[in-house]
């Protein structure tokens, strides 16, 4: 194996991004639904604003009921998971059927949760299967570069989301360090000036999250 084309590197990168997007937004959704139980019923509007999606939901009930499951809503969790699947299936020959199965299982979990009596609890299975997917990436995929591109996608996505979700500076810096190690190992083309600027900004206390985020988004040259 070992031949990674531009198209394949893109698929791997986005496989990493979409699986991470599902993972982090789902955790955030579970926290958000807790808030919406009693302390802040209108929190879904804040959720949409933070994650950067249009609030089309209209009510707490509708948000809770449709946001994870609605395949016709491009921002839903399942839509993002379907995109992860699309990027995975075209890479079956690189990542393997065993690895792919965990994304399929996660999709089935969401569909199952939609019909279940305790959907929030059942959605946790999605996270289990995504973690199993990451485990497979480490355990089964032999080619280091393939692993690193997926992890780079994951790292970029997490950093982007953490910046959007106002995680602590400590968390941001930690995720940046993790992402950075995959940047060079993945052999993906990136803008070294931008990287340098991001590093400099992160070293200053009280850095501007939005500015850092827009730099992170322009880091990889595709």
């Amino acid at each position: 194996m070992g031949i990674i084309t531009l198209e394949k590197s893109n698929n791997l990168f986005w496989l990493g991004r979409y699986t991470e997007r599902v993972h982090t937004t789902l955790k955030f959704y579970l926290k958000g639904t807790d808030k919406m139980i009693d302390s802040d019923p209108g929190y879904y509007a804040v959720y949409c604003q933070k994650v950067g999606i249009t609030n089309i939901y209209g009510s707490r009930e509708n948000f809770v009921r449709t946001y994870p499951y609605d395949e016709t809503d491009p921002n839903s969790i399942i839509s993002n998971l379907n995109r992860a699947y699309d990027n995975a299936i075209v890479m079956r020959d690189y990542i393997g059927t065993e690895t792919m199965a965990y994304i399929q299982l996660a999709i089935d979990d969401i569909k199952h949760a939609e019909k279940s009596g305790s959907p929030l609890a059942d959605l946790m299975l999605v996270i289990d299967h995504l973690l199993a997917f990451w485990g497979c990436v480490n355990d089964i995929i032999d080619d280091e570069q393939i692993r690193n591109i997926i992890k780079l996608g994951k790292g970029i996505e997490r950093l982007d989301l953490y910046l959007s979700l106002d995680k602590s500076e400590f968390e941001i810096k930690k995720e940046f360090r993790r992402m950075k190690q995959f940047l060079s190992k993945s052999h993906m083309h990136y803008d070294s000036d931008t990287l340098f600027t991001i590093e400099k900004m992160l070293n200053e206390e009280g850095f501007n999250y939005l500015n850092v985020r827009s730099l992170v988004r322009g880091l990889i040259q595709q």
Partner: protein
Amino acid sequence: MDGLIKHSKTINKLLSRYGVKFGIYKNGEFKEQLFPFDPIPRIIDYNEFSNLEKGLIQRVQVLNCFLADVYGKKQIIKDGVIPEEFIYSAKGFLPPCDGVFPQKGIYSHISGIDLVQAKDNNWYVLEDNLRVPSGASYPMIARELQRRSAPETFMEHRIIDNRNYADLLKEVMDYVNTGGINVILSPGRYNAAFFEHSYLAEKTGAVLTTGNDIVCENDKVFYIDYDGNKQRIGAVYRRISDEFLDPMTFNEESLIGIPHLFEAYKKGNVALLNAPGNGVADDKGIYYFVPKMIRYYLGEDSILQNAPTYLPYYKKDMKYVLDNFDNLVIKDVAEAGGYGVIFGSSLSKDKKADFIDLLKNEPRRFIAQEVIDFYDLDILDEKGERVPRKADLRAFVLTDGKTKVWPSGLTRFSRNPDSFIVNSSQGGGFKDTWVLSR
């Protein structure tokens, strides 16, 4: 077998886990659905299979001879065995392939021969598929998952392992490879058989590609990596049809093809599996002549029988077709996938008159066949009860230095009790096919 029925839920769960699906376009939208699996296998005993095997090898060898002849010396036409207009008006006859010789002279590397067993126990060939026959991956993965779900069943019965399909396929690719890597060229994610493309790539170690990362330069074909380095490609197992293969030679509008691929092939710098132009041999009109070809090229009788077929092109046959219209099934030679099939008895009076007009105007366009009294296979219905259904068998025949029959096949069945159409695109399901080792 009862073990399989008992564990059928588990098997289905595993099939779903591994995404054993096929794609379908509904109202212009691409959807993937699980390929319905029935746990009751088709069982072919050893002697029966040996006979089938002989017949399939004979047939595929002759079809390869025919292709070499038609795109070469055309002796069979000169000798008047097949009327020339049947060859040249076949949609699958591609003039650019005339005089082009594929690597090692093999045209049909992977052949899918569709058969049915009649109530008299005889096997009849319904159709040859020599272009891009699909379906082998389904019984392959289903076998793996059944063995895991019901191991005891496979201990009790002597069943030839069919999971070697990928090895056979790889041997074929390696045999014709002109030096370089093997790739599987898929039209893309939104193709009905994409599961199979990706699965076979994984299992054969070939690279899966949609062609965007392939370039043809000075009659050689290369795979281009992220940094722009080129790696030579020696064999392309292409799962896209001839017309889309190369916009510089075939359909200019094709966005999925590789420009100048055909020139590289013509000059012997890359192998294409299957060879372009094979459509002339699996044309429904040419099908009628296969037993004659076997006699012509080998001087032998055909081991496998064709379904009794009439060509309205011949006056005598036209008369028979008109006299027996209600008992026949009429097929449009240009259609595939179970489309363009008309049962004479199903037409209203007006429609029948219209159709007969069309038939008289374009006799070359249709063939007529006797309806075969299928030997039905049992399936489990939704309630878990055994009910009989129409089923066919797609046998896979691979050709490298030798012609080999994969000891299994795709058994497709119709879920609708009144239907003869088993195609997955029309709601059919599949079964495993067991070949017993003694």
